[in-house]
């Protein structure tokens, strides 16, 4: 019986709305507009080509969009764009969002359901926004006796660790946030943080089921880390570099490594499923055994952040699979060399290579993501001892097979510098 107050008056309700609008207008007029003017007049803006970007030039782009193109070109050259937009977080988060939607529809079709249907007119495409709004509006419950600092920090750490993996992934030629020489090693180093976060969060929850889930996550990730790295090692042997862009380049010069190393690709795929805690390896979140595993005490946006983090991680591992085995952005050229657009001429910022590369990269990544979603529809959950046995015995042996194959290919003169199959 807590729907509305007993002394409800419609007039007061409307009055309160008007007051709200009034205050918003006051704040915008007194604070927001001056702030915009201060930024435009006093903050030095970067030079665009040969012109200095003045507030006047900036404001003319509203009426004359062509003048904004040089500004965008400059921005696209900055690090901020790479971190925040294209190969960085926004791109990854968008792919994660599309992944969630695709997962729900795809799974629904497998299970003879319709999936999300109502939010948004067409096939429930706005379902994700509805879910996000719901999660934001929910109360975040911190269990009594929880380690508050750890409890709040873990979701943020989870998302930022996932984003840190994304930072190392090149999505198109030249489009990478951190082009480091030990890229692959750095990816595995950062991935090693996830079990730690899971364990710390589960311990901070001060509850039994999360703790069991955290321990399971730790066991599982350690058991699969070794085949994971070993399967990538054979790729490193073939390409001779740890730099992810270099790995793609060496595949551009010969053929995709999945043709030489199918077993490694398989091991990598299985290990990444385990790393992602997806069915059949979702033991840390097995709901019929340990409620929701290490996510049991999460609520509201904490849960939302952890889900976002895990889907960003899904993208990162799928992208890594594409880079290691499927030739990264390699693919036939589909974009024209020159582009002519009617109203605004965007040819200054048009890059044929980058557009083509990112298209093929995105398509391949979605293909791999679909493969990762598939087991959820057809497989039951595995048991802990079978899982550990799989990780420690079978996958490591399988990964070693392809390491020897890779060594034979290098020493046989088939691949590597001056090899037979190198174009």
């Amino acid at each position: 019986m807590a729907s509305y107050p007993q002394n409800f008056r419609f007039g007061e309700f409307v009055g309160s709305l008007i007051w709200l609008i009034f205050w918003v207008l006051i704040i915008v007029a007194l604070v927001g507009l001056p702030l915009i003017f201060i930024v435009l007049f006093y903050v030095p803006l970067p030079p665009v080509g040969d012109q200095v970007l003045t507030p006047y030039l900036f404001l003319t782009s509203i009426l004359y969009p062509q003048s904004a193109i040089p500004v965008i070109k400059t921005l696209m050259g900055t690090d901020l764009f790479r971190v925040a937009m294209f190969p960085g977080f926004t791109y990854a988060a968008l792919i994660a969002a599309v992944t969630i939607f695709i997962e729900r529809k795809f799974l629904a079709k497998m299970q003879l359901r319709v999936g999300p249907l109502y939010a948004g007119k067409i096939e429930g495409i706005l379902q994700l926004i509805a879910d996000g709004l719901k999660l934001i509006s929910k109360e975040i419950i911190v269990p009594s006796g929880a380690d508050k600092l750890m409890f709040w920090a873990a979701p943020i750490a989870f998302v930022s660790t996932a984003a840190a993996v994304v930072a190392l992934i090149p999505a198109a030629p030249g489009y990478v946030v951190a082009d480091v020489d030990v890229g692959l090693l750095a990816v595995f180093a950062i991935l090693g943080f996830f079990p730690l976060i899971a364990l710390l969060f589960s311990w901070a929850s001060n509850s039994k089921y999360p703790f069991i889930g955290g321990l399971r996550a730790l066991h599982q990730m350690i058991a699969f880390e070794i085949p994971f790295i070993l399967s990538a090692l054979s790729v490193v042997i073939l390409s001779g570099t740890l730099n992810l862009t270099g790995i793609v380049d060496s595949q551009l010069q010969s053929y995709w490594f999945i043709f030489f190393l199918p077993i490694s690709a398989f091991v990598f795929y299985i290990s990444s499923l385990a790393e992602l805690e997806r069915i059949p390896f979702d033991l840390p979140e097995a709901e019929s055994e340990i409620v929701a595993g290490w996510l049991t005490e999460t609520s509201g946006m904490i849960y939302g952040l952890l889900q976002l983090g895990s889907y960003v991680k899904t993208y990162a591992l799928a992208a890594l699979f594409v880079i290691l085995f499927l030739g990264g952005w390699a693919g036939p050229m589909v974009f024209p060399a020159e582009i002519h657009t009617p109203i605004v001429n965007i040819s200054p910022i048009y890059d044929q290579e980058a557009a083509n590369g990112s298209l093929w990269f995105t398509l391949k990544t979605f293909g791999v993501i679909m493969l990762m979603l598939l087991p959820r529809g057809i497989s039951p959950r595995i048991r802990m001892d079978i899982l550990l046995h799989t990780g420690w015995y079978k996958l490591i042996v399988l990964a070693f097979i392809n390491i020897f194959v890779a060594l034979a290919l290098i020493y046989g003169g088939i691949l590597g510098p001056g090899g037979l199959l190198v174009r």
Partner: protein
Amino acid sequence: MTSLEDKFEESKKLGLQIAKESEDDRLMTLSVGPQHPGSGHFRFIIKVDGDYIVYCDPDPGYVHRGEEKMCEYRNVIQNIPHLERPVIHDSNNITYSYSLAVEELVGIEVPRRAQYIRALASELNRQVYTLYWLAIYGIFLGHSTMFMWPTGDRELLIDLLEVLTGARVTHAYNIPGGVRNDMPDGFKERCLRQVRYLQKRFKEYEDIFYNMPLFRQRTEGVAVLSKEDAIKLGVTGSVVRASGIPYDIRKAEPYDIYNEIDFKVQYMKTGDCFARSYVPFLDMKESCHIIEQLLDKMPQSGEVRAKLQPNPKGPPGEAYRRVESGRGALGYYVVSDGTPKPYRVKISVGSFRNMLALPYLLVGQKMGDMPATYWSLNYWPVEADR
């Protein structure tokens, strides 16, 4: 041959500390339920030593409604709608044996057509229940497709039963003296169509669930209930049939027209989780044949309800009648003192009897086998609480 007491000894050999009474620092006590996705309206307290369960204590009663006490305040006909509440998914079977017992006490002759319709409704309802049970078994093992498929196919049967009885799940269809109303026109064709469809789907269930290597790995050889233990514990239904005892009330003590139906009692000999999960499925397949025979042999017309007095009452006496429900033998012990209201009604349900096997099977198991073992006992918490 392992006896029940040996189970504790076996677990000790694994290096486990078997907890019976005393607490120990090594052990973690977990309350599985009632707010747990893997329990239902039921709780069992387990103690784990690492990943091994060393103690289990079932604690039912969260949905206890006092059905037996309520029966003493209503006359035999009024009792029907509330007696089916414990298992609304199997409501035709739980009222079936009550009707049989009351008929024995009051002395009512049930028309032949009514007996067939009753058996038909009971078989359809067994399928509805088993499909739902199977769906939950699927989701307990993390197989979400196996949750959705039987739940979807169950809708068809529910629609079918709605046509027959007028309600989707709580039918109140069996009454002392027959059934409430006759079959509608064209029911036979519709029923046969749905049964054919189900038989087609059962093959797909086997492909995606029972023949799945991961499912086999998780269930084969897990939580074995030997034949001797099954007898000793007095478990019933699919649990006892999975342990190699072909005991089915429909065959052992044929009620109504079941002695005219040709069917086989489905049983397996391994007694593990796989057998316990597969026997109800086999039952469901056999039930399809039973339905076909029932529709075939049914008298085309006739009374479906015996004439009853407004307040039917018989001489003082008592009756104990059983039927084979989705969860095993379902018996009613009804004592009458000559008044229209029963003096005492005792419902002996399969779930309550199968619950006894839970502690014996869980002790010594890994925690990952807990849902597979628990739900393989064909246990419906609400029914056990009554």
